[in-house]
């Protein structure tokens, strides 16, 4: 029998991928299944989709009769390379979990020209100087990840973009222009389905003593999560127990070894136990591009007191729902806050309760799924903006003249070489071939086609 629900394709990683966005996607898919006949395009064809959701090979997703309902989950790591490639063939709504995307591009083999073009698009003046290392030496600096977001292509190719904070939406508008970001909607992060474990039961399972003060950090310990600050803060608080419920990069592991218990990646139930058992969930970010945190959502849902950096998306959380730590304070501010919380159980309880109230009001799965449905339906008939046409230059088949015309230009460019076929045949017989006979050496020839009025060359110029 035909399903009465309209079809929806969601593209993104799913469990067992060790990726917070995989958990997010699975939770959202489960909720959207009430409204839609959901398919999940996943690079892992054997991924764990919620009941009733069929996993589809992304290479064949375009064959599904989707009626314009496509939702891409995009994060800034290589697990999302297939999502970016699918977006290029199958436009739809994009959930931009992290407006960065430079790491995604670098780690999935995107062409250097594409990355440089994205940098120019994001910040043309900055790109002239700060993209130099990549352009001339072939390496990228850490600063690039803050300076350039590479979300321009996503804005162009999507029918709508969802971010989890006003900060992220504003940043996109300021970087790419209000018109380019006009289709950006803010939907808060969601709460995981089902209740978080009871605190006492979770502490019992983990062997946490009644009088112990447990500090938990969680997730993969990227540098921006500032475990260095946590380490420094807890050096002065020897009575507190610290568990990092997640993985850490190899370089950081020896530094943490003497102070923190590092669990490595945890399955969902164990992760929830750690978060529910905590007296304080420390979820710092600096620098932040506006990314969101599933760990924080779990902490709020569990009623665990949460400490966050007073920056980016975290600064938007109600002051009574989380404890904001000033960026300038670093480890000292964190140490003071933790000490104060340890000394005031009633303050911890109030903070946790307020956090849970906020989460249940704003981040409940059913509420979030309904908002997604609104965005998906509104975007159905909205075509993505057409990609900008490259500049077309009409030129004679004269290498010196072409070099002058291309001087100072950068990025994609289209040349129409107006000449009789016979003269082009002669050029093509040059020992070094037609491209070298016509183009300066820095030009990369991408495509050639013949038109009645001449030879059309699609090229890419550095810079």
């Amino acid at each position, binding site marked *: 029998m035909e399903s009465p629900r309209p079809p929806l394709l969601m593209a993104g990683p799913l469990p067992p991928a060790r990726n917070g966005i995989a958990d997010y996607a699975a939770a959202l898919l489960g909720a959207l299944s009430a409204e839609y006949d959901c398919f999940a395009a996943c690079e892992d*064809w*054997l991924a764990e989709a919620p009941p009733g959701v*069929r*996993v*589809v*090979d*992304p*290479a*064949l*997703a*375009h*064959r599904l009769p989707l009626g314009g309902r496509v939702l891409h989950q995009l994060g800034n790591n290589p697990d999302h390379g297939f999502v970016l*490639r699918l977006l*290029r*063939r*199958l436009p739809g709504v994009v959930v931009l979990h992290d407006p960065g995307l430079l790491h995604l591009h670098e780690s999935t083999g995107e062409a250097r020209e594409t990355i440089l073009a994205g940098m120019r698009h994001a910040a043309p003046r900055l790109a002239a100087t700060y993209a130099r290392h990549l352009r001339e030496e072939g390496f990228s600096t850490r600063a690039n990840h803050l300076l350039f977001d590479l979300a321009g292509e996503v804005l162009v190719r999507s029918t709508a973009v969802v971010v989890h904070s006003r900060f992220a939406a504003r940043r996109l508008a300021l970087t790419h222009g209000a018109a380019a970001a006009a289709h950006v909607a803010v939907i808060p992060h969601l709460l995981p389905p089902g209740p978080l474990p009871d605190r006492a039961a979770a502490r019992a399972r983990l062997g946490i003593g009644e009088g112990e003060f447990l500090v938990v950090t969680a997730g993969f310990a990227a540098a921006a999560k500032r475990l260095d600050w946590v380490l420094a803060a807890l050096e002065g608080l020897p009575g507190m127990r610290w568990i990092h419920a997640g993985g850490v990069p190899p370089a950081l592991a020896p530094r943490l070894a003497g102070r923190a218990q590092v669990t490595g990646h945890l399955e969902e139930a164990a992760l929830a136990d750690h978060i529910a058992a905590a007296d304080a969930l420390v979820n710092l970010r600096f620098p932040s591009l506006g990314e969101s945190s599933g760990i924080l959502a779990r902490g709020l849902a569990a009623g665990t007191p949460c400490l966050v950096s007073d920056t980016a998306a975290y600064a938007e959380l109600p002051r009574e729902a989380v404890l904001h730590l000033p960026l300038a304070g670093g480890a000292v501010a964190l140490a003071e806050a933790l000490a104060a919380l340890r000394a005031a159980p009633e303050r911890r309880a109030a903070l946790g309760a307020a956090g849970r109230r906020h989460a249940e009001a704003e981040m409940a799965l059913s509420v979030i799924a309904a908002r997604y449905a609104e965005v998906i339906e509104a975007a159905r008939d909205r075509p993505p903006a057409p990609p900008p046409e490259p500049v077309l230059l009409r030129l004679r088949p004269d290498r010196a003249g072409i070099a002058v015309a291309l001087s100072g230009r950068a990025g994609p460019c289209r040349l129409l070489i107006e000449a009789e076929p016979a003269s082009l045949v002669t050029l093509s017989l040059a020992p070094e071939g037609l491209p070298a006979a016509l183009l300066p050496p820095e030009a990369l020839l991408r495509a050639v086609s013949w038109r009645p009025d001449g030879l059309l060359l699609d090229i890419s110029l550095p810079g």
Partner: protein
Amino acid sequence: MSALPLLAALLAEALPGLTLRDWSLPAGDLLPWLPSVRAGIADPAALEPGERALLAGFRQRGEPLLGLDPIADAAADPAWEAAERLVWGAEGEPGALVLLRGRAGPLPEEIARIKLILGVRTAPESFELLLPAARLPALFERLRASAHSLAGPGWEAGGRALTPRLASLGLLAPIGAPLPVGRPDPVGLPQDLPEPAVLGGQARARLLLGALPAGTRLRLRFAGAEPGPVALLLDGLRQPTTAEAGGWLAARTASGSGQAAVLGLAWPGNAPAGLRLASIEVGG
């Protein structure tokens, strides 16, 4: 039921050593039914981006599908040097016979046509084979003999040469008669494996089977190792499978979209070392 399995069987019987270029992708009409088909796209510009990206990911004996890469298309193809060459889904190539569905328009003097009426008696399908007029008598006789050879009890087979440039041949099966099974060569099919049909060490593989009607039976047999917990996908979606006698793994196509069916195989982790795809059967 499609008449294509019957058409393929007739051609294979009448023209041993036949090499065929099937330009009908994204459908791939004859790909599943003959073992030596080179697949191509007659109008790549008409492909929608997703289908183009999908087809561009396949290699057939190490080469891209015809029509997607002009440089590769222009390279010598030893298989296309065969004595008997046939083109389906395109206007034709020098020295090759042309096969088409329906009726060709007016033909030059030197070209003849053999009308083929094939399929189930209640739903016959019409094809035309275009060939040099000088070859018509001999080729028609071979086709007629092959039709009689393929026909079972209750079938209708026969035809006649009407003029030096026109002949007609019919091969019609009664309803419910078993039709020929297609046995495409796992090594020769378009696929995305680094080494054709070699699955060992791969997490997943795609093979382009060609156009298959809804409900078509598909059977696979592996060699070199036990296949282990293999998942079978058709057109990107996992399908239930059954194990059959003789080591076959069987499934059925869910929908006949008119686009070439894509067989996917996946393993948790990787396929066992040494595993390869030995046989494919479609239909029956």
